[in-house]
């Protein structure tokens, strides 16, 4: 697949993503800016498996930039000034904290069984090992994994 074909497919997904993150008015621009970054900085990447996750990461940054733009009352920050000022961005730090707080909150809300499952997953244990540790059959283990992931997503999204 050429980059142009990929760009057309990912653009639609990024517009949806930006819209779902409260940036519906600028979703089209955000998607375009994301693709521009991909084109200018990551042109050496070819596989969708590399490009898709990176697209969402860049798009998330662009959404935050758009919010910041609105918070400044629409005042455009000249590019060259941003390039010069590379100190850690307090707004970005706040955004990162916010995302982590959501995740902390979600982790605390899990059942003790899901907590243990995710803890063992984060420690790098295999499904077989976790099934043994939780004293459950492998088939039931897959169901539990699915439920825990769903629960984590739900709590994270609320």
């Amino acid at each position, binding site marked *: 697949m050429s980059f142009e074909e990929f760009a057309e497919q990912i653009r639609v997904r990024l517009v949806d993503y930006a819209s779902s993150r409260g940036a519906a008015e600028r979703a089209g621009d955000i998607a375009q800016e994301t693709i521009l970054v991909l084109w200018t900085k990551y042109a050496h990447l070819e596989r969708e498996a590399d490009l898709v996750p990176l697209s969402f*990461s860049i798009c998330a940054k662009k959404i935050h930039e758009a919010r910041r733009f609105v918070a400044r009352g629409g005042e455009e920050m000249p590019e060259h000034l941003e390039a010069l000022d*590379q100190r850690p961005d307090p707004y970005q730090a706040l955004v990162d904290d916010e995302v982590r707080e959501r995740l902390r909150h979600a982790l*605390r809300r*899990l059942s003790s069984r899901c907590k243990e499952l995710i803890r063992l997953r*984060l420690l790098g244990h295999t499904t077989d090992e976790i099934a043994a*540790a939780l004293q459950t059959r492998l088939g039931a283990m897959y169901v539990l994994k*699915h439920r825990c992931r769903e629960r984590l997503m739900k709590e994270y999204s609320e």
Partner: protein
Amino acid sequence: MKSPMDDSEFAELLESYTFGDIAPTDQQRLTRAVLDSPERAGDFAKAHEIREQFADGRFRREALDILEEGTVVSDIGYSARGIIYAPMPPKAVSLDRRSRIGRYRWYAAGAAAAAAVLIAAYVAFRLDPPVDVASSQTAAAPPTVAVTPTVPPLVSMSPADTPALAAGLALGFVAFERPAREAHGVRLDLPGGRSYASNVQVTVRVTLDVAARVYAIVRGPTGLIRQVYPVPTEEPRVLEPGPRTFAFAASEPFDPPSGGTFILRVFKVADLSRAAETDWRWMAGNAEFAERTYTVPPR
């Protein structure tokens, strides 16, 4: 176009992706499914956000601490608009005593039955002739849970285990697979030293013995690869023999806030007929290069 992947398989792959242990071929299938379906793209975006947080060693450690907490503690609320606000209200407690008793009636009956069995066993034990207490205690010991005690290091993840930052793998696998050794035709100096704050520019002095094209590539602590010279939008130029200086940002927004060690490789392409920028694999496998490392402290 409809994706051939069913929902249960998608969920399974997404779970593996979230925790960073998805196989490369599965990740390819997963991302294809994401491109084909808006609903799946939404799920993927959330999983990706979580994966990015878990990829950071410090947060991962903190998450493990939270998961080890025995009780649910929700003292900080969160609004959908992203504002951290007042503590969440406590859960409503049912004041209907009869309904609560009803809910736990079977538990109570089970506990009573278990107690009766224990008492009966105790009485029977007392009536039987004395036995070897030590051996009976050993036999009654509960089975040990087979949890592997070894804990893998939290921050030394392979590039494939990292989130979006694995994006550079296409080039990174080849650009960094050759072991570093002292190159004779290209000399590399970092006049600013070996440690830089994330917001600081790293100045690089490259000295060439012959005219050549030069490509500088940095690999971050999580495996993210980026080209820092020439800027990808610029045409590569042939540099004359002698010293040449360029600079680039020590870290990018996609590098982890926890900092780490960065590896800089500067490739020299003396064969000017080669269009290295369109043939990375050739360059990474054949061109002479010099390597330096530098560190970035946590932001």
